[in-house]
Structures are given as C-alpha cells and as structure tokens.
C-alpha cells in the first residue's frame, strides 16, 4: 500500500513571493503522482501529474513539480503567487497495480497575503 505525507499543513505567503509545498510518498512499486487544488467551497481540480519521463512537470496556473525518485518526493512550486492562489493543495499517489485508487495527503492550506 502507498501513503503520502504533506510536510506543511499551513503555508502563509506574501503576494508575488515564491512558494514550495512539500510532498513525500512511500510505495513498494512504481507510482503515478498528482497535485490537486481545492478553492474555497469547490471540489478538487487537477493541477499537474507525473506519469513518466521528464521529472519536471508543468501544470496549470504557473505551477510546476519535480519528481525525485531517490528521495520519494514530489514537491510543488510556483515562482510568484497571486491572491487567487489561496486554496488547499493535495498531493496524491496511485501505484501501478491497476486498481485506480488514489491515496491523498492531509493537505496544505496556502494563504496569500497582499
């Protein structure tokens, strides 16, 4: 079974500053990795995903993430945040056994201040 740890529960950041959200996973097999965002009072939407190939993945709204197999990490970054990036962010992992399930981290709340 796989598991996900998001290392920060709350990240306050000023507008136009960079942000990094940390995610570590554990799994005995190869995995697919995802970052989802949940804006206030909405469902989750996909930011980006790593399936294979280049370890640097670019997503929507200027976000990117880097897969590091040796450190079993998939950290999310944005070089300059906006007020509208205030949201909760979830890291998720799915192993390649084919059961289609995702395991989610506990989430990181990002609050962007002017």
């Amino acid at each position, binding site marked *: 079974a796989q598991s*996900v740890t*998001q290392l920060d*529960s709350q990240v306050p950041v000023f507008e136009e500053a960079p942000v990094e959200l940390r995610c570590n996973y554990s799994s005995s097999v190869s995995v*697919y990795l*995802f970052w*989802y965002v949940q804006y206030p*009072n*909405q*469902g*989750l*939407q*996909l930011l980006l*995903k790593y*399936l294979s190939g280049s370890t640097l993945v670019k997503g929507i709204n200027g976000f990117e993430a880097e897969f590091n197999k040796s450190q079993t990490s998939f950290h999310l970054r944005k070089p300059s945040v906006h007020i509208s990036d205030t949201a909760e962010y*979830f890291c998720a992992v*799915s192993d390649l056994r084919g059961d*289609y*399930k*995702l395991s*989610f*981290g*506990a*989430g990181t709340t990002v609050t962007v201040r002017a």
Partner: protein
Amino acid sequence: DVKVTQSSRYLVKRTGEKVFLECVQDMDHENMFWYRQDPGLGLRLIYFSYDVKMKEKGDIPEGYSVSREKKERFSLILESASTNQTSMYLCASSSGQPAYEQYFGPGTRLTVT
C-alpha cells in the same frame, strides 16, 4: 469538459435518518469513488466502483453503503446517520486513462444533528 454533479451542496439531517447522496457523471467513466474530507485528514476513500453493480470497500466503509445501478450514477447511503458522519463528501470519477486521473464533483457538506 467532464462534469461530475452531486445532488446537494448542503444537507442537514437528524441522527438515525437514512441519507442518500447522489452523484452523476457525464463522461461514460467506468470508475466512480466516494470520499470523505475532514480537516487535517485529507480525503479518505469510503467506497469505489469499477462497473455497474460492482462495489469495493475503501479505507473507511463502516456505516456506509453504495449503489450503482447505472454507469453514470453512484449513490452513497448512510443507513442510520450519526453525528460523527458530519463531514464533506466528495464524489469522483475516472476512466482509468490517462493514468487514473480523477474528476471531482463540488461536494456535499452534510451536517447530522
């Protein structure tokens, strides 16, 4: 655009009531999921379904059941609601391609009093 809809955004029920949460997807997805979201715990899988009339328990199935009579519809049932089932419930669907990406509904915030 994939659309996953849930029957209610907010629901208030009394302890002991039978509660139905409905989810419909319009993309002909094989897989459907019910999650519960609580602060500090992330999303926890309650039940999922790979096909019509098929269901599998997730990580926290106790106190819940599901029904999938049609491919597009997946219902979550609380047989006898309890206060510890007060939570946000999220439905999702996926086709299995590409690589298990799930599409989520807006959620139902259930309060059991």
